[in-house]
């Protein structure tokens, strides 16, 4: 069999394949390797610096048991409240709570402690938290430290390798195929279990600066996992959510929570701190409410909107300036080059581009996972932002690790099924097809059109008719996909990303049509159903059918506290 596959390119064999070497993927690789599994990580860039926290991160959410708000129960109560209708509390308990202590210990051990140099935790509050769960820390080198640990444990790494599809047999996932983005080498990877960890979907909505790579989360994350899992037949959830955040005007950078977490006020042109008019928690309201309120202030003519930190004490300001670049390494450069001094000036902010991701800081959109991070397909696991129940540094660290342990455990239990030569041939032809595209349409024009159209018809205000229009236009535009030509393998990667964005957009529209209500303010704003309805306290599940996409509603239980 191996000989038959050799004709296509390089054939590799592993127990656990991790697709995507970001925060969740690296933690998954570490978890699987510690269990003794042979691990292979494939990433289209480098596992040292890739994914959402490539250049660093500054916050890790945790409860530490100092008070009643600082407990597992209070945390899960908040989780069930803030993300009700998208979050599975029982899965959260498994992927986060049960793994939290081990994660804090692991970060210490690899040399990226959550503590300050004085040995204490620096904790702040923002985005609707019931207490200061956010641990502020220096995570500028978290990624390379995790990569070092994964390599130390013997994980094999295939870099500059874009994974394009999952190999299946009898409904079980048995590996994946991909190509080198520089020289086109094709890979056939046989794996007993596969963990997808490729993040959320960016570049999907019109960018306010007309720069599609100027995104809040990593613009290399374009829904690869969601697309591959969908095509293999897995169930996905929370796909209808549009995520938007607040960013410095002109630069879609993370890090604004550092300003608001320290007590920065969000003010309008008149200098009014307007958030209390919209929400009792003011500038520390949930992110979805902040975004909606800023949109309203600007649309009603009270903009521009700023973050004002001028009232902060010298001590707090010094801490802010020291830590500002931890979340986004280049944010201090941007502020300085703008000529802004936070001690004297306000920093203008805007609402970011839309992205496809979860409604809160705890859960995301994508592969529906259970308490063991298993998808609905045997052999396939989800980790990080591409899984429906993981999001942000804390859950991607804890849950990623759990997925590695689980994938290692199941790798010894699943059937050893042969790879179909016909399937590999078909997948290779599909991924390389744009190398012989007609060239009548550029990848940039294709994506720009899709982004503009989706923001208009399926963005932060949508209704049944506009979603139907979006689906129709996606269908028409999709017929032109084969007109895009890639001149080299870097461009081939980008064209493949456009395809993934298109597939995610279709899932998003179908899921949104199924959720006939508004929830999470602008994150799922159905103008034809403006109320939040208790009967939608659950998830919209998306799955491939023979002819297209089916969606259905799955109720979730918010009445019981899961066992420790």
């Amino acid at each position: 069999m191996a000989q038959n596959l050799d004709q296509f390119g390089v054939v590799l064999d592993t127990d656990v394949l991790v697709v995507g070497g970001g925060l969740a993927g690296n933690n998954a690789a570490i978890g699987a390797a510690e269990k003794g599994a042979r691990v292979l990580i494939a990433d289209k860039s480098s596992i040292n610096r890739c994914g959402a926290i490539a250049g660093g991160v500054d916050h890790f959410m945790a409860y530490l048991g100092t008070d009643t708000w600082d407990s597992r129960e209070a945390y899960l109560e908040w989780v069930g409240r803030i993300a009700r209708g998208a979050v599975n509390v029982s899965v959260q308990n498994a992927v986060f709570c049960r793994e939290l202590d081990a994660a804090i210990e692991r970060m210490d051990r690899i040399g990226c402690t959550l503590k300050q140099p004085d040995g204490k935790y620096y904790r702040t509050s923002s985005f609707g938290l019931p207490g200061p769960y956010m641990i502020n820390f220096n995570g500028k080198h978290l990624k390379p430290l995790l990569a070092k640990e994964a390599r130390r444990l013997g994980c094999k790494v295939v870099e500059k390798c874009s994974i394009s599809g999952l190999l299946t047999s009898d409904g079980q996932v048995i590996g994946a195929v991909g190509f080198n983005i520089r020289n086109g080498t094709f890979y056939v990877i046989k794996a007993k279990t596969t963990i997808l960890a490729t993040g959320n979907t960016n570049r999907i909505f019109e960018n306010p600066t007309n720069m599609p790579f100027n995104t809040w989360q990593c613009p290399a994350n374009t829904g690869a996992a969601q697309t591959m899992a969908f095509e293999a037949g897995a169930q996905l959830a929370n796909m209808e959510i549009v995520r938007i955040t607040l960013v410095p005007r002109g630069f879609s950078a993370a890090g604004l929570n550092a300003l608001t977490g320290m007590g920065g006020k969000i003010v309008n042109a008149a200098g009014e701190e307007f958030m209390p008019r919209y929400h009792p928690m003011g500038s520390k309201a949930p992110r979805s409410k902040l975004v909606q309120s800023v949109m309203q202030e600007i649309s009603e003519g009270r903009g521009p909107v700023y973050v004002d930190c001028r009232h902060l004490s010298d001590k707090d300001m010094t801490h802010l300036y020291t830590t500002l670049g931890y979340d986004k390494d280049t944010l201090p450069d941007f502020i300085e080059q703008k000529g802004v001094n936070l001690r004297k000036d306000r920093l203008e902010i805007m609402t970011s581009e839309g992205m496809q991701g979860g409604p809160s800081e705890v859960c995301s959109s994508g592969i529906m996972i259970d308490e063991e991070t298993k998808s609905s397909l045997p052999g396939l696991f989800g980790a990080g932002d591409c899984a429906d129940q993981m999001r942000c540094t804390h859950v991607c660290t804890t849950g990623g690790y759990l997925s590695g342990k689980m994938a290692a455990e199941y790798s010894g239990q699943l059937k050893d099924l042969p790879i179909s030569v016909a399937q590999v041939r078909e997948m290779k032809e599909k991924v390389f097809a744009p190398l012989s595209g007609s060239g009548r349409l550029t990848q940039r024009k294709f994506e720009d059109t899709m982004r503009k159209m989706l923001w208009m018809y399926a963005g932060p205000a949508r209704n049944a008719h506009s979603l139907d229009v979006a689906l129709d236009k996606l269908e028409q535009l999709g017929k032109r996909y084969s007109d895009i030509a890639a001149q080299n393998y870097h461009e081939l990667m980008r064209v493949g990303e456009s395809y993934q964005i298109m597939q995610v957009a279709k899932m998003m529209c179908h899921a949104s049509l199924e959720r006939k209500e508004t929830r999470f303010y602008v994150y799922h704003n159905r103008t034809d159903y403006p109320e939040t309805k208790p009967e939608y306290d659950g998830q919209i599940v998306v799955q491939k059918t023979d002819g297209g996409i089916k969606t259905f509603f799955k109720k979730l239980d918010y009445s019981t506290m899961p066992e420790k």
Partner: protein
Amino acid sequence: MPPVIDLKKCKGCGTCDLHCPLDVILFDQQTKTPIVRYPDECWHCGSCRLDCPADAVSIQFGPEMLYV
């Protein structure tokens, strides 16, 4: 148009190419110099600067971001 690489300081190690999450930088094996090949695809994450052992990378934001 970030990043800007000072070729006088560059030691030709290729780390910026290896670590760029967006495949923006190409290290030319013939000339042993890095080329910012796809500047429009830069995410401004700072990885190239963080990991450059020669301190040869600076980040310069364009007017399209500073003054929009």
